[in-house]
């Protein structure tokens, strides 16, 4: 297992380098040079040329890439053109905010979906199963923005119980914890709907298997069969999917963050992309790729712990 982990970490480093180079090169090749973007459309060509030289953009791509990576390894990702702040600071702030939202959501979504999915799947076609199936497919099929607007209408406009925006500032008139409620709710509804149906169908399949019959006909109670024989098997397939939700929660919350004016990582990436803030895009991509690869590694390791058939 150690050997496998080391191998995967090495793979990860190689992939990160490859991705960073690709993103770096692609940004360079995109139309319009950086100096022009910085100075705007009304600057003269000679002004642009001077800045171009000052920024060292006339040097070969590979030299500039190596310099960039050298700085990046030291924690310096350059300056954001739009926010006029070091990228590392900006990223740290925004990523921190997103991590809080992601952690709370994950802590709600996972136990909730496991509980409902297993309860629904253990008695296929029971009333509870049907109710949960309907509920989860409704949740999963309403897009986040619709769900967000819907909840805003109820809790903010109608009931006035919760704040409509979540800038995470104490001076906005609402306690900071209350500003988390709606974003977490929207994410939970949307994501849990998907996970519940995933876990449910895995559980249904396990409950139909021959070893569940074996356990029952040993004289074991239904509760014992579910807890001892079904649960672990039913979680094997959804396990990787559960971890994949971390990717979504860290870099896919653009819609929710935008909707609630939440200062998170997804929105930062969106803004950077719209304004061609290259340094931010580059650093953000590296973060997103690392998160994906780390969750994959944890997914593989957890998978091995759950399923003795694939232990290496």
């Amino acid at each position: 297992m150690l050997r496998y982990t080391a191998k995967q970490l090495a793979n990860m480093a190689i992939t990160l380098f490859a991705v960073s180079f690709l993103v770096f090169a692609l940004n360079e090749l995109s139309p319009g040079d950086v100096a022009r973007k910085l100075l705007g459309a009304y600057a003269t060509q000679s002004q642009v040329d001077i800045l171009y030289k000052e920024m060292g953009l006339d040097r070969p791509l590979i030299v500039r890439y190596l310099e960039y990576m050298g700085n990046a390894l030291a924690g310096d990702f350059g300056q954001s053109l739009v926010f006029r702040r070091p990228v590392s600071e900006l990223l740290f702030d925004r990523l921190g905010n997103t991590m809080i939202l992601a952690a709370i959501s994950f802590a709600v979504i996972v136990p909730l979906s496991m509980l409902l999915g297993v309860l629904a799947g253990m008695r296929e076609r029971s009333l509870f199963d049907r109710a949960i199936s309907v509920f989860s497919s409704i949740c999963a099929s309403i897009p986040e923005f619709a769900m967000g607007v819907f909840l805003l209408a109820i809790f903010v406009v109608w009931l006035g119980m919760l704040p409509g925006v979540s800038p995470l500032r104490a001076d906005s008139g609402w306690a900071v914890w209350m500003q988390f409620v709606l974003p977490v709710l929207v994410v939970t509804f949307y994501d849990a709907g998907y996970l519940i149906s995933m876990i449910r169908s895995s559980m249904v399949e396990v409950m139909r298997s021959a070893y569940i019959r074996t356990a029952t006909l040993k004289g074991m109670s239904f509760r014992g069969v579910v807890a001892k024989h079904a649960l672990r098997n039913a979680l094997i397939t959804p396990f990787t999917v559960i971890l994949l939700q971390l990717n979504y929660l860290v870099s896919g919350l653009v819609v929710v963050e935008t909707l609630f004016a939440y200062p998170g990582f997804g929105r930062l990436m969106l803004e950077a992309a719209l304004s061609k803030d290259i340094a931010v895009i580059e650093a953000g991509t590296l973060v997103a790729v690392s998160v994906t690869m780390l969750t994959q590694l944890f997914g593989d390791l957890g998978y091995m712990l759950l399923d003795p058939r694939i232990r290496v």
Partner: protein
Amino acid sequence: MADVLVFDKVSIDYRGKAGVQRILNDVSFSIPAGGSMGLVGESGCGKSTVALAAMRYLPRGMTVAEGRISVEGRDTAGLSDAELRRVRGNRVAMIYQDPMSSLNPVMTVGEQLMEVPLLHGVTDRAVAFQRAVAMLGEVRLPDAEAMMARYPHQLSGGQQQRVVIAMALMAEPALLIMDEPTTGLDVTIEAAILELVRELRSKFGAAILFISHNLGTVARICDRIGVLYAGRLVETGDIRSVFHRPAHPYTHGLLSALPRIDARGKGARLHPIEGTLAAADRARPGCAFSPRCPHMAPAECVERSVPMVPASPAADHLARCARLEAVRKASQAAWRARPPAEAEVDAPILLDVRHLTKNYELGGRFGGRAKRVVRALSDANFQARAGQTLAIVGESGCGKSTLAKTISGLIPASAGEARLGDADLAQLPVDKRPRDLRRRIQMVFQNPDSTLNPSHSVEFALARPLKVLRGMGSGEAKREVARLMEQVQLPPDLLRRMPHQLSGGQRQRVAIARALAGEPDLVVADEPVSALDVSVQAAILNLLSDLLERSHVGLIVISHDLALVRHMADWVAVMYLGRIVEYGPADAVFRPPYHPYTEALLAAAPKPDPDAGAPTVVLGGAMPSSTQAIVGCPFASRCPRKIGAICDTETPPVRRFGVHSIACHIDLPPPAAGIRSQADAAAPPP
């Protein structure tokens, strides 16, 4: 009450979308303490429902509509949940088909075994552990303590079934229910498991309900037998009475459809049961078998219900038949066998295989672990002849499927050649073969459900090879399809059907028609009937042998079933661990001298005869891994007749008796004909 299990006029209904269906109808039998009863019948006859009903574990939608099921004198319907749990696994235990899927893949063998005593009264884990270890010893698993820590996937199929048996015996139950316990296992493993069951039965004294489609395995285990048809018991009795004097025409049919290893040789014709079981037959007021029965008389069989009546002087031999007398008379004239045909050695050679070898390389891609080589096929030599059948037999993993795949071009060989006319098939993958060569070799696969494209009609499946391989136009192809359908005895109205609308036998007929569509020279059939019921299997086998005889197509049939091979083959190649250990005309291979492996296979094959007795040789162990380099004889590690160190160190010489060859160190005597002449010389007949 001395009876462990009693079914008293039990009927079971299934309530589904199509209304209520009667799955079991008026089934009565009982098993006394220590007795053993076999239940046989084709798929869909309700055998497994009987097993599940005895455990009160019916699938959703099924209910006991009438009658009483009692276990040790107690009506199971009246048991509370807690009482039921004390019966299950404790008084009645079950052993299943497919041991791999009936063991929990994420729990160790030990945990799963220990659960049984822990559920039924034992509180001390150490005691449970000791019992589990002891029981693993009882089922002859080596190194029981180490076995406890293993996971099911780390065991072989035979070992897994031993674990399941150990699990069932843990609580020393009064009744063991075995549902097809050896289906899917190799013959040698099957024989060993059946011997184990017999032995444990006398030791633990449990009664047995043994469910199987295989009359041979039932004959080896049971003292009574019940024959189920369409949910009704049609005949029950002492095993010898039923096997020797079958009364019901369906029982007759089952017995005469069965290929026998003691058949007189190739050409001994099988008698399939005509027709198939229709869903409507279950609801018939009269005899459910009447639509398929040659002795049917409307007044007696169709219009009124048929009761169980005494079928022979033997006590308790009952049959549900209104025309027993007529059936008895007719059966005197059965078994008209054709004279066994001697294999013609001089029939033209179609396919000449020499030194064919296939190695797979595992691992070692980035110089990590050392490369391992799987020797799937080593130095195979044989010929397939026009109009004749070559059977390739051996246990799973012996390389027989690799051989078929190499010939059909699905995988390239590593060395050697396989000549079909001028072409060498060994190095020619199927996509590089010219169209005409592809036409000349066709395959029939084991599982017709998965080899016919589910979204193509029968007509499309048959017309396509005609157009592609024989370049026919639509009109011509249509006429040819009609002819093919007639050849495989399928009614033309099936042409528009989709594969899922056909029965298993019909699908396999379509698969055969498809293979014949290109007018091939050679057909390779990989276990063509092993997924089919006995009665259907006989019809398909007859069809194949008729077609071949007429068309001079060569057939290579791959099979694990020696009885079937005895009926079909002109030539036999016995494979072990990627090598052909014995090869020759079928009559020579099925007669001594044998290779010790052939001898073991023959002994292990279940025989539908209650007096056959225990097999003379039971192979222990498992086939070694084919990644190890073999120095001496590949069979040395399991050979019951190993003669000494020479078997481990030197490649056995090939002993030839004419065209019959055996690779063995034992100095085998020449065939029986030679012995007889010697004996004649020594002692003249009186």
